[in-house]
């Protein structure tokens, strides 16, 4: 009886605490989005907060520094040694801005604006000119736009996106439609994304394969550089006039249908299945990739030649498991096949360890293996009678390992005590291929709300 009495008293005290927690005036200054929060303040809202109003939900900035070494560049047809250098450095910066508002039906609208800029130096690009006098660097600019609307009742989404990427020798425009729907109990979600990329490849050929200089009747010489600049030279060698890139371009189209299904299995485990259907058509080679043949005549390089269509089928799954209270297992596997003969397996595991609820350390390892495409042969191993040929190591048989560690900090009071600075991630990775290509990448991601 005494036990029962004490239980009733205890329950009553707990209820009191619960009541207190519901009526206590909120003294925090953090904004509370009304469309997702279970919090319902009692009393007059004096903040003029309007959930329908357009507002900035999140700003993300991701920067990376990438450095690579190797000595079988595709520009020199896989030639080993200094001329085949694959040294690359790349500095990438991407900014993403998410704007959110609610419409009349309380559906959440998200507008994502992305802006990216990369600057790279590439030693192999210099060898587009045979003696290494070409421009060894460049930059890329890539804005993007995406609009997504989420149904407040069902959780389903629909959206459209557009994308552009521009660099000196390559322009790409893209568009996508994406749609997702949740199961009745909202534990599963099916998604579809249809993408189209419409690219133009500038036909920059190796210097020895472009048309030779031509003399005109007035005694001047018209000369086309490897990068497509047409210069008119006087009889004394002075540049009289110079026109910008006049080289023709060729089209490349990529169409993708990407499917996904995610499912919560229990309170610690969730999985996702992924599958893409990808078709490419158009000019799928690169015009400045040389190929040397096994006829012992190294002066007769040709430009890489690949079929004008390719079909890719990658399928994979993710499995994430919360082990105990501090450890998470993030795993991924993919099988890939295409009609050029490449078969590939990718497996990765990342193990975030939560040192505190707001700080984690995440070591990771990724293993990749692929078979060679049927159009690939190394330096001077192609036959001159081959219909298609490439010596680009991207299509070679190789294995690769990628490992490193990441750090993430996301304290409730903001990083360094700044409320709006909600997340900071730093990650380093070391990558090795059995083709002797080695690279390192360090990335920084910061998020503001």
């Amino acid at each position: 009886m005494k036990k029962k009495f004490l239980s009733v008293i205890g329950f009553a005290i707990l209820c009191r605490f619960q009541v207190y927690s519901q009526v206590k005036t909120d003294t925090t200054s953090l904004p509370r989005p009304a469309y997702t929060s279970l919090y319902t303040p009692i009393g007059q809202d004096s903040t003029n907060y309007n959930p329908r109003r357009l507002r900035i939900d999140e700003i993300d900035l991701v920067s990376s520094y990438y450095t690579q070494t190797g000595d079988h560049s595709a520009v020199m047809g896989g030639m080993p040694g200094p001329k085949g250098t694959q040294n690359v450095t790349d500095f990438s910066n991407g900014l993403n801005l998410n704007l959110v508002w609610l419409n009349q039906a309380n559906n959440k609208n998200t507008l994502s604006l992305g802006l990216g800029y990369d600057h790279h130096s590439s030693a192999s690009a210099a060898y587009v000119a045979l003696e290494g006098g070409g421009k060894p660097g460049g930059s890329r600019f890539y804005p993007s736009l995406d609009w997504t609307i989420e149904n407040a009742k069902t959780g389903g989404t629909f959206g459209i996106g557009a994308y552009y990427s521009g660099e000196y020798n390559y322009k790409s425009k893209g568009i996508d439609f994406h749609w997702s729907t949740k199961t009745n109990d909202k534990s599963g979600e099916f998604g579809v994304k249809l993408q189209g990329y419409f690219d133009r490849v500038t036909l920059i050929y190796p210097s020895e394969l472009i048309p030779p200089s031509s003399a005109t009747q007035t005694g001047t010489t018209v000369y086309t550089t490897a990068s497509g600049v047409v210069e008119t030279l006087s009889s004394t060698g002075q540049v009289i006039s110079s026109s910008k890139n006049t080289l023709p371009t060729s089209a490349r189209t990529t169409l993708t249908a990407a499917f996904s299904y995610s499912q919560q299995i229990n309170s610690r485990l969730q999985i996702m299945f992924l599958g893409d259907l990808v078709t490419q058509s158009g000019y799928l080679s690169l015009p400045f990739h040389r190929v040397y043949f096994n006829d012992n005549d190294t002066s007769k390089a040709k430009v890489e030649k690949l079929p004008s269509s390719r079909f890719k089928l990658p399928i994979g799954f993710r499995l994430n498991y919360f082990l105990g209270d501090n450890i998470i297992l993030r795993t991924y596997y993919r099988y890939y096949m295409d009609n050029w003969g490449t078969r590939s397996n990718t497996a990765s595991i990342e193990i975030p360890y939560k040192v505190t609820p707001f700080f984690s350390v995440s070591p990771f390892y990724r293993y990749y293996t692929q078979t060679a495409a049927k159009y690939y042969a190394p330096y001077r191993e192609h036959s001159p009678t081959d219909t298609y040929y490439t010596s680009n190591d991207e299509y070679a048989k190789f294995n690769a390992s990628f490992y490193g560690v990441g750090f993430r900090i996301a304290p409730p009071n903001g990083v360094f005590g700044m409320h709006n600075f909600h997340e900071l991630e730093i990650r380093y990775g070391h990558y090795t291929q059995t083709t002797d290509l080695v690279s390192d990448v360090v990335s920084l991601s910061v998020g503001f709300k």
Partner: protein
Amino acid sequence: MKTTKQLMKISACLLLIISATSCVHLKEYQKSRLNDSEMALTNRKVEKNELNFQSYREGASGANAGKTGGGCGCN
């Protein structure tokens, strides 16, 4: 080839384990671990440029919610 077969077997075993585990209907308060940001079934934001260079250096791409086209990666 041997490694490929081993990976396939491991994957098949994992899928079998998952299939054998019945899905449990979860209430919102039971999803605290699943809602942890590190449990998200997506790539991390900080991985974005890693995925780019991998798709340019390797023959395979796709099925990872990353890009399957666009951009040259010629260098």
